[in-house]
């Protein structure tokens, strides 16, 4: 970690900004659960990556952590721009995949996961651009919502966007000083890249049916 890139005067504002970004990311995580059109799913996922990258960049600036800033840049470039564009091209080329029916129960489950995240995270007190209990709870909620999207919807597009959302949760949780933090976004990008590669193959199907429990949803 180096010297903070954001001065002490601006630190409270920057801290509030990270909370705002986190809250927006959480809201978008809930919105993702209800999207039926592939284009909307991809778009909302991309915007969530932008705000998560923004939060990580501000936190990296507060803590003077170049690694965290690099992780934010990777998230922005890959999850926020490159993968959504590639996915959109695949969907346009292959045609809109049949989307699973809307499931109101999924939204309830999402809300329950947000509550669980708020209850699970204990109090923390870390200075210097670090996390607070609230920001960690928001990050955990985004991560769990991403996991829900991956497991509850059989569509490969939803799975891919869910994987990216899970990565956004991770980058929201990342704190200055975490060793090799630049590897964190890769944990979600690598499987997302594989899913994208599989979808781009002519013989692959964009229909639902990836997981036994998710068929027909």
């Amino acid at each position: 970690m180096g010297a903070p890139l954001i001065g002490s005067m601006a630190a409270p504002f920057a801290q509030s900004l990270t909370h705002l970004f986190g809250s927006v990311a959480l809201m978008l995580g809930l919105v993702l659960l209800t999207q039926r059109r592939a284009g909307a799913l991809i778009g909302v996922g991309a915007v969530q990556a932008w705000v998560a990258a923004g939060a990580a960049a501000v936190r990296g600036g507060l803590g003077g952590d170049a690694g965290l800033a690099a992780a934010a840049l990777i998230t922005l470039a890959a999850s926020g721009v490159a993968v959504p564009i590639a996915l959109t091209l695949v969907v346009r080329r292959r045609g809109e995949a049949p989307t699973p029916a809307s499931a109101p129960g999924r939204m309830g489950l999402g809300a329950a996961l947000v509550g669980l995240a708020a209850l699970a995270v204990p109090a923390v007190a870390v200075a210097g651009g670090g996390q607070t209990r609230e920001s960690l709870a928001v990050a955990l909620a985004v991560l769990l919502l991403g996991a829900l999207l991956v497991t509850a919807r059989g569509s490969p597009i939803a799975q891919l966007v869910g994987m990216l959302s899970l990565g956004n949760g991770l980058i929201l949780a990342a704190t200055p000083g975490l060793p090799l933090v630049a590897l964190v976004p890769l944990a979600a990008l690598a499987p997302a890249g594989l899913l994208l590669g599989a979808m781009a193959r002519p013989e692959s199907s964009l229909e639902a049916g990836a997981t036994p429990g998710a068929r027909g949803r």
Partner: protein
Amino acid sequence: MNPLVAAVVPGLPFAAAIALGLIGDRRIRGWPIGIWVNLAAAGATLLAALGFAVQPPASSSALLLADPLARHFALLAGFIGFTAACAELGRPPAQEPAWRPHLALALGQAFLGAVLAALMANSLVVTVVAAEAASLALAVAAALPRTPDAMRAARTRTATAGLAGGLALFGVILLSIAASPAQGPDAPAMSWTTLPQAAAASAGALLGLGFVFLLVGAAALAMAAPLHLWMAGSGPTARAPAPAMTAPLMMTMAITVILRLRQAAADNPDAVVPGPTVLLLGLLALLIAALALRRQRDAQRFVAVATVGQGGIVAVAIGLGTSAAVFAGVLHLTLATLVLTALLSPAANRRRPAGPTGLGLTIAAGLIALAGLPPFGLFSSMLLIVMAAAHGAPLLLVPLGAGLGLGAWAMLARLPTPGPSGAAASPPDRATPWSRAMIVLPWLHLALTALLGLAMPIPLVRWFATIAGSLG
């Protein structure tokens, strides 16, 4: 050994994977070059792992872990990688045009390199990312046949690897946040070597939450119960050599993570007590696997479920937490890995003619070993675990005995038909001199298991005691 030289151990398989990808399906006088490059790389990796185990670096570095646990399992992984590469010499020619053998070999090497990196990395982040990479290598291997089933299985495994990796990384982040006040701003980056000291003075609740996430992520990567039900399809569709190494090595990797976590969390009085959590998960895995074994008809699925059960037995030993139990757990993990990889070896899974054959005997011996019957070493390790349970928690003997008994009964009562799905209807594979010779490989694994059960040399007893002592 210089730490940079030790980095050759995981580096060699990755280099071999790239080389195999570049070589492709080139042949010299009909012999595929890739198989020999694969064998040479696996042999070199085994030698490097042996050097790392016998003459380790003086101390762990920022990236490389040189403790007895890492050395032991790196050597075991190197050995399994080598025998899996030898078994490729006897593999019959591919029937499916879509199956590209050089890609399967390259993915097998990438898998081995990722497993070794996860076992030897001192950084928690690298361990998790390498474990996820190993799972993704298997996902790609599963997709090689390109059938709809294979693609679905690959997608399931990819999604699970991403989920598990994400949960585990979140755990690492929480551990890092919990440990940061105790470590101070100028302390070296958090690693497996610094975690126990930092954890002792960390915020207990956050440490416990991080432990839970890392535990769940590691268990999910290893397809522990009940996730194995979701993942059951991905193993059998994968092409060799991945299946021969996958489940046992993933289990080994996950359990080393759990062993290290238990040690770190045990020093903090405010953290979630790790022992009972791991013990309960182990019992759950053992009982679920024991019941599920009865329904398995396919050989590879049967072994995959048996792997879950064996992992459960090891988790019970880790959960008990005494030095004797950890000794027995590490011994059991080593022996079970050897037996399971013997059963998954391509040499033991050829489609064979009906009637009694050497292959059938191999499968039978492997199942007897997994059932915990003498003369194989799993008898000794299971006995040690039962004795540790009787000493520390006598009530535990009821579910543990039920799990072990049901598992053994399922092993002995339902000898599965060896070979891939639908093998009974398929013509037997054409036997070649190489394929006949390669039956020696599973027997080498089984002989080692028997040797360690009947008469373990004193230096090896000291070696296992050192590992248990380093974790106690």
